[in-house]
């Protein structure tokens, strides 16, 4: 490139257009080409950024940001090509080019080790296949629960029914011990019936679609308490229901959560003269935690992990009745709403069960 002396003795750069001898056609060709390249290089990162912000679940999300940066840098070097046609800011152009070089080499260095992992990502067909398999398994489970419902209940009905027939027809000739044994048979037949029913309601839950609506939890809790209180008219339980912020969820299912948690609070305070149940809410970190607290039997926190498992019980059947399905049901319902459920307790000092529910309509 030519260097000319202008007035002073300090040499200065000439604009790039000078090299093109200010030929209008050549200038126009460079101007148009660099403009189009720059436009394309800026629209690609805009598109990428829009995409990763909408699809936060895309794997290697940050890689898209790096690509966007690198391509935007390339776009800027072409903008500088246009600028330097008339303005000889070659140092600025050089620095911008150096920045783009760093972004490019950085992107390349980050991308290459990523490739083996990206190759392992499941393809749409693989996911489709997995999905079909899951659907088949789900259908099998439905068939299973149908047979449980149908085929296991029938023999149980016979066990209970014929034990009763025996008691009715031959009761007078049976001694006390024989009658007690008959009673044991019937009690267990009925208990198994309850277990099957509970298990089925748990499995039905997986198939039921969620119908979310705004819920007045305090009103629902009051109805549950009234129902529980009327079932045990002899008991005195002090119940406090605090103001509960509105939640969003399936009315029937959230009702089941309340029935189980408040029902448990009533159950495990049985035998306490000063039984107290508190239903309240805490708001923090943008979500609301609802809780049901009692001053009943509580449990040892070292068994807390087992609490929400199906058929897991932390108390003997002769202490507190139950099938061990209630809390599993609670957890499943809360999880299906995208919430969390956990417990805090101490032996003989009561338990607190907390859960979160969405406060707004879920987007999915």
């Amino acid at each position, binding site marked *: 490139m030519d260097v000319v002396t202008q007035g002073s003795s300090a040499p200065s750069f000439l604009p790039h257009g000078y090299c093109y001898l200010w030929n209008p056609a050549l200038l126009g060709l460079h101007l148009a080409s660099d403009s189009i390249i720059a436009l394309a290089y800026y629209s690609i990162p805009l598109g990428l950024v829009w995409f990763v912000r909408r699809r936060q679940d895309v794997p290697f999300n940050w890689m898209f940001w790096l690509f966007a940066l690198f391509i935007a840098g390339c776009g800027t070097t072409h903008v500088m090509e246009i600028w330097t046609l008339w303005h000889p800011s070659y140092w600025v152009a050089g620095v911008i080019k150096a920045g783009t070089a760093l972004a490019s080499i950085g992107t390349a260095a980050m991308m290459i080790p990523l490739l083996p992992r990206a190759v392992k990502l499941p393809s749409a067909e693989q996911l489709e296949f997995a999905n079909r398999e899951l659907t088949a398994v789900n259908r099998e489970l439905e068939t299973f*629960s*149908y047979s449980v*419902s*149908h*085929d296991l*209940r*029938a*023999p*149980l*009905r*016979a066990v*209970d*029914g*014929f*034990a*009763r*027939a025996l008691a009715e027809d031959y009761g007078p000739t049976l001694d006390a011990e024989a009658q007690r044994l008959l009673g044991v048979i019937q009690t267990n*037949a*009925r208990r*198994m*019936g309850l277990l*099957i*029913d509970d298990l*089925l309601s748990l499995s*039905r839950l997986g198939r039921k679609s969620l119908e979310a609506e705004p819920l007045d939890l305090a009103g629902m809790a009051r109805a549950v308490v009234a129902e529980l209180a009327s079932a045990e008219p002899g008991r005195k339980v002090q119940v406090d229901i605090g103001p509960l912020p509105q939640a969003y969820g399936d009315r029937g299912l959230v009702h089941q959560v309340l029935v189980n948690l408040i029902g448990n609070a009533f159950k495990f305070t049985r035998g306490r003269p000063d039984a107290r149940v508190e239903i309240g809410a805490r708001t923090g970190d943008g979500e609301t935690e609802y809780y049901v607290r009692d001053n009943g039997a509580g449990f040892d926190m070292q068994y807390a992990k087992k609490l929400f498992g199906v058929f897991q019980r932390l108390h003997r059947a002769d202490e507190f009745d139950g099938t061990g399905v209630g809390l599993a049901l609670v957890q499943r319902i809360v999880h299906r709403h995208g919430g969390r459920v956990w417990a805090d307790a101490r032996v003989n000092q009561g338990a607190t069960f907390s859960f979160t529910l969405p406060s707004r309509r879920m987007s999915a």
Partner: protein
Amino acid sequence: MSLPPEVEILLVEDSADDVELTLRALKARNLANQVFVARDGAEALEFFFGEHAHPLREFGVTPRVILLDLKLPKVDGLEVLKRLKSDERTRSLPVVVLTSSREEPDIAAAYRLGANSYIVKPVDFEAFARAVSEVGLYWLLLNEQPR
């Protein structure tokens, strides 16, 4: 209570145990005097639509209520229900679906096909007996049918 002499129930049930228990429950309410039992869906359909002469049909016997189990060998209960409700001669017969199944699609399907009631047999025999005999009493004594 004196019962009309023509009390008739068709019980469609494959399990011998359930038949016996159902009869016991009906007997306890004096409703078991004329119960006919079909042991599968085909036998039930034979009763109404069979090509061979059926001894009961010969005598002009028509059940006044049908207690129908859903899960039956050969022809299942929903199929029997569909045939009964789509035939002019049997459409007005009350059909009480009586089954172990608590599965919702069954309940919905049974009502869609025109079942008059749906009773889930409880495991508890006492509850079972009560359910069976209440159904019997309602459909035999209280419900007015077109003649």
